[in-house]
């Protein structure tokens, strides 16, 4: 028994070593990352990611719309995209960046801002939600709006009609919040607003601009004043309250330095393999019909070189001898454009007559330097919308005024010298009289102005590319003169001549991780991408 007594004494001693262990189990809160972030600390990232998702979307639509081409690399994303093939998760970033980086943070910001009465943050959050969901639904045709960012891992999807019925009122809500006085203790919008520096008036103008743009997307719907009608008066009213000059543009400027996430978005997205597209180049040089020369009297065949060329189109590089050394210099010739009517194995990377769209020391381009800007909406775009609305209403002289103001605003934004822009505006490249003005004039100029902006693709779909009444290419009847199906179009999805791309393939996250739900939407059917988005269907 003595031994047992000793043993239990020892056990007691050992028990002390247990108590020396730390038994506190309430330690499952990570010491590495916070769980809260106040609204002004979320907003800078939200603004950056708005620019990222929308700009990256723009890089892709630029390829679809033949603004940019790609060197021959048959399995590369952008090469395939220019042929309307969506493999390699070509669109994935757009979807991921909106939901996972932008919208989720907007929702958190709105929640936190509501708690503290920081109504301006709520307003900014709501208008960016309307803007972003609008851009996503325009591209994809379906999105998880009701089930978005709410914890449902098997969401249902809403179509564009539903989403538009929600985001148009959301613009008004945003304006209400932006007009509201913040609670005294709430953090000022200027603390986190990198774009408008806390100027709520500009955000309100932006909200009207977003609303005008979204309403204008309904141009195929019946005219009227209901929410989902094509409401021309309503659009003009909103434009009136929106941007008054280029100074109001929603612009995001990249930052110099080595941190690549701070560079302008098109700088981040471009490589030297992205080349100019032939159609875009032809619109800038006004040389659409270089073969038959049958349309020489048209503006886009006037051979007048647009002064914006210098900011947009790279020049060919040649060797020159300077002080006995061979150095590279710019030649006077501009890069060729990738011609999708012929290009298959061309251009190759070694073709030096095709110059990349990524800025270099020699070829400094407007959108692709580290410090370049990217725009969500501009004053010039609103003027183009105004021109289009007036044109559709038959008020052609008002349309002409807006059209010219739009071009002037664009020239100014690109920094074109006043004399050069005046020359151009007076040239044959621009419609001079109301009777001469066509929808093509407006839309082709808008196409140039909105280079890298996804809105170009929305416009092209609304205006039916260059399609005649039989659904196939028709130069005379079409709006976007010279825009043809790529010769190497992805045949599985676009087998016949009247098949044009009308929406993005459903993002692969949903095809993989929510396959049951998206199968019902027909995303695995070959005709998915030729099916129009709701607003793209004539009413």
């Amino acid at each position, binding site marked *: 028994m003595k031994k*047992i007594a000793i*043993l239990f004494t020892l*056990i007691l001693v050992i028990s002390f070593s247990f108590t020396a*262990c*730390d*038994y506190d*189990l309430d*330690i499952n*809160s*990570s*010491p*590495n*990352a916070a769980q809260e*972030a106040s609204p*002004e*600390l*979320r*907003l*800078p*990232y939200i603004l*950056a*990611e708005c620019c990222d998702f929308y700009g990256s979307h723009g890089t892709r639509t630029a390829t679809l719309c033949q603004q940019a081409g790609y060197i021959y*690399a*048959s*399995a590369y994303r952008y090469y395939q995209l220019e042929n309307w*093939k969506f*493999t390699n998760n070509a669109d994935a970033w757009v979807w*991921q960046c909106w*939901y*996972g980086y932008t919208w*989720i943070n907007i929702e958190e910001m709105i929640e936190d801002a509501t708690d503290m009465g920081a109504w301006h943050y709520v307003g900014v959050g709501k208008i960016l939600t309307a803007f972003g969901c609008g851009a996503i639904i325009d591209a994809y045709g379906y*999105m*998880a709006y009701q*089930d*978005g*960012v709410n*914890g449902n*891992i098997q*969401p249902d999807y809403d179509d564009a009609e539903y989403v538009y019925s929600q985001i148009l009122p959301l613009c008004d809500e945003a304006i209400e919040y932006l007009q509201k006085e913040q609670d005294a203790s709430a953090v000022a919008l200027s603390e*986190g607003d990198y774009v408008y520096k806390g100027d709520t008036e500009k955000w309100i103008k932006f909200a009207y601009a977003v609303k005008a743009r979204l309403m204008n997307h309904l141009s195929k719907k019946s005219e009227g004043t209901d929410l989902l009608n094509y409401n021309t008066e309503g659009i003009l009213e909103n434009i009136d309250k929106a941007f008054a000059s280029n100074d109001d543009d929603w612009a995001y400027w990249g*930052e110099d*330095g*080595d941190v*690549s996430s701070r560079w302008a978005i098109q700088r981040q997205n471009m*490589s*030297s393999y992205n080349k100019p597209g032939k159609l875009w180049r032809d619109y800038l040089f006004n040389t659409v019909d270089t073969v038959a020369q049958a349309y020489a009297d048209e503006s886009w065949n006037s051979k007048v070189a647009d002064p914006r060329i210098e900011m947009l189109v790279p020049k060919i590089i040649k060797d020159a001898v300077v002080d006995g050394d061979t150095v590279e210099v710019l030649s006077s010739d501009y890069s060729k454009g990738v011609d999708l009517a012929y290009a*298959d*194995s061309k251009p*190759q*990377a*070694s073709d030096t007559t095709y110059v990349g769209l990524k800025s270099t020391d020699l070829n400094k381009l407007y959108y692709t330097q580290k410090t370049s800007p990217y725009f969500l909406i501009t004053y010039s775009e609103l003027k183009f919308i105004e021109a289009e609305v007036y044109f559709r209403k038959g008020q052609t002289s008002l349309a002409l005024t807006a059209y010219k103001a739009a071009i002037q605003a664009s020239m100014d934004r690109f920094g074109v010298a006043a004399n050069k822009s005046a020359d151009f505006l007076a040239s044959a490249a621009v419609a001079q009289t109301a009777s001469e003005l066509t929808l093509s004039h407006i839309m082709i100029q808008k196409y140039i102005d909105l280079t890298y902006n996804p809105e170009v693709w929305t416009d092209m779909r609304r205006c039916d590319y260059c399609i005649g009444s039989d659904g196939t290419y028709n130069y005379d009847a079409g709006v976007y003169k010279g825009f043809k199906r790529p010769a190497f179009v992805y*045949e*599985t999805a676009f087998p016949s001549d009247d098949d044009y791309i009308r929406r993005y393939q459903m993002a692969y*996250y*949903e*095809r*993989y*991780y*929510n396959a*049951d739900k998206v199968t019902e939407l027909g995303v695995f059917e070959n005709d998915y991408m030729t099916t129009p988005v709701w607003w793209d269907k004539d009413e």
Partner: protein
Amino acid sequence: MPAEVLAQKRTITGVVREETTNELLPGVTVLEKGTTNGTITNINGEFSINVKEDAILVVSFVGLEAKEVKVGQSSTINLSLAPSSEQVDEVVVTAMGIKRETKALGYAVQKVAGDELVKVKQPNLVNSLNGKIAGVNVTNSGGGAGASSKIVIRGGTSLSGDNQPLFVVDGIPIDNSTVSANTSSGGLSATSTYQANRGMDINSDDIESISVLKGPAAAALYGLKAAAGAIIITTKKGESGQPKIVLSTKLKMEHVNKLPEYQKKYAQGDNGVTGDGTYTSWGAAIPDGTQTYENLEDFFETAWSYDVNASISGGNEHANYYMSVHRMDQNGIVPTTNYTTNSFRFNGEQQKGWFTVGMNSNYIYSETTKTLTGSGLSGTGGYGAIMALLYWPVTNNMKNWKNSSGERIALLPNADPEDDLGNPYWVINKNPITDNTHRFIGSGYVKMSPTKWLDATYRAGIDHYNIFQRAIIYPGSAVKEPYVDGTITEKEIQKNIFTSNFTINARQKVGAFNLSALAGHNYEQTTYRKNQQQAAGLLSNFMSINNANADNQTFSNYESTKRLYSFYGELSASWKNMAFVSVTGRNDWSSTLSEENRSFFYPSVSGSFVVSELFPDMLKDKFSFAKIRASWSQVGKDAPVYQTATYVNVVSTIGGGYKNSYYGGNPDLKPETTESMELGLDMRFFKGRLGLDLTYYDTKSKDQIINPRVSMTTGYIFQYANFGTVTNKGIECTLTAKPIVKKNFQWNTSLNLSHNEGTVTDIPVSLLYVDDVQIGPAKSASIKNGKFLGLTGQRWEHSDDGELILDADSGRPITSTDATNIVGNREPDLIMGWNNDFHYKNFSLSLLFDIRVGGDVYNATETQMVYAGTSKTTENRGKDITMKGVSVNSDGEYVSSTSTFTQDQEYYQNILTADASYFITSVNWFRLRSASLSYSLPKALCNRIGFVKNIDLSLSGTNLLLFTNYNGVDPEVSAGGSGILGAGSSGIDYAGVPATRSVSFGLNITF
């Protein structure tokens, strides 16, 4: 005085030796038959006993054949005991280090002796278990020096956790994780390079034995960490007697085992045009007389390794010690790569009265130099050496990788560095990844045995390691800006597992019953810390993290602490050595779950019945032993740390601030449960010459804590959740035989067979992608109501009747972007290991054959080579191919159709690679995994030398023969190594370092 005391007594003395080794045997029981009179031999094997005239002595020792000797005229009896052919009473180490006779166990436990591990010594301990144990599946991640191997017992039980068993060394759990393979932290994604599994730090020469506790029942006392089984390692102890010194060395030569086939007919270029605008080999046919290069064959080297181990051990009846030192230098078949490890061990034990105090300590220092393999460093746009090697055009001399001023020679002179393909020689010479690891594993214990029926043990231990890893991108490498100016990424990891364990054990005999009870307490704290720093855009080619502007320097820190404590107990009873039953229970409290969910209890019950005890003696001659066993158990499992909340991360975009993490937290996580049932039958025939062990099991892991990839609309890429059941059903069969047992010639053979089927149910989505190993048209997936180790991917379009649809115009198959088709199951139908040991006089020969039947392997390497135009398959370019199927006629109906079209670049790159099934093979293999021939110098010769006791020479090899229907490299592949969790990356072949074949020579001297 009673009459018998008056009977004449005499003293018998003697010495007992082991028959085969002739070694003196201490501790042998010598009993006078029919009495309780007995003794045991001393340290020199000597005994002395007083017995009656004509007494019979029963001499017995565990593991040896007992002998009965009649006392004759002589008062000295010297005898030797032969190894027992009947291993019925084999003793194995079970949970918590408890030694049990196998016949008392209600579940399957298999043991590997230490000398089995070193016959053909593998640099990675885990590989040594390959083929030796039924139900254990070991997958080597490739032939890189210092690469991981994954071990899974009875199929994976967890959809997203680590499916590898718990490793326990001398009573304390050690870490066998694979550091940072499945995250892109530090730029190293899973396919960037290979990583070590930390279990490989243990030196096989130090191991006395390994017990493999296969199911939750066997491991129930270890609790939640052992839901996937446990590997119980016991290291060596000294034996009383003369100090024993063992010196062993091995010299090894390794070659690449199998290389993929590549085409040598077509030049670098695109669309039939030769040129240097692209790295792909889609140029024109190479004109006769043009020089081509064997870049692939020339790249891999013969690699030499040297392994030396020295140990000294000894002791007396109260104390023992074992000390060892080990060093291994292994060179890789990829030039510049290597793995070096140094290990030092001290084990010691002292007994005083009823106390035994001991310690085990092991210090390991290892260094690895590796290369990038498949992908380059994440975000840099570069390629790993192996990928680039497989892409490299035959018309370019790859050895021409830098110019006289040390700059990179571009493959594509007109391309930006980021669009170029980095030369593999540049990558291995200029962009190495190095790591070094310092590790200490140690424990101390005190055992108290105050009485025969009660003892208690307290043990405290620590497993601590530091890893420092550095990855370099030299200025001018083929990567994006700003990395192109030089990049250094450094990572320091510190992990620490502290364990405290107390058990108290009581046993009592009550009539025909033996009862025992055990109670214990366990505490464990795991801390982890990672510091990471990166400098990109270096100011010059001075490779230091300091050599960059502050803007280009980033650093981050991560640390975690997890605590767990438990109480556990076991009650066992046996009746007449015939029926055994045991019940366990354990309650865990874990810090990783919320207060309401953190405490969980789970029980187990197991029993066995030795049927043969009822057999008549007649039958026992032929059917010597039969036992049935059954068990049922439950094990809970907690969550990884910090999953109960969503966090925000700091961003580097303009204005800074925060964003939500892409992992969605879940405060309501509950413990998951694994429930297992096991039935077994163990039979021995002909006094153990033939044995058969059969096991059937059914394991269900429910309410899994997982973090699957989810719909992006959630705002998260991964979401922590509790759902999904993985069911594993399988059978294991071990057949052992001793076909030949002669004095000079013995043949032992054993065959391990197993079949497992892992299926998934109760998931809300039809397919579950837990970890992303996606290359080309297929990826690893778990399929609802289908396979756990599935593969999904793209297919060509088929009609509802299953006919291939051919495009009406082009005649080509129609591709689809739908990548959710079920295209494969990576689980083998059957895995088989066949061990053979032959002993002839002083020679012994061991052969281990490894057979695998079925199980898909996805050749993602080939998809990449087809794309690049380097695959042998693409040699058929320009040739016509005829396909049969259906196509749509003008009425929109399917009509059967046969088409012939030319296989061109477009076909290979965009059509062929859009059909995963073309790249998936159900693989069978037969391989001579290892073989060794050893020779022990005759005793006489050793005696002549003097101080030497034994000299053994050995010649061994691995992977000497491989027959397989797989068309790529060695099909034992795992693209992401052992660090890929859940369904993992085994069976996915993607630009890893190919497996090797080796031959080694060994010398073993005992003093």
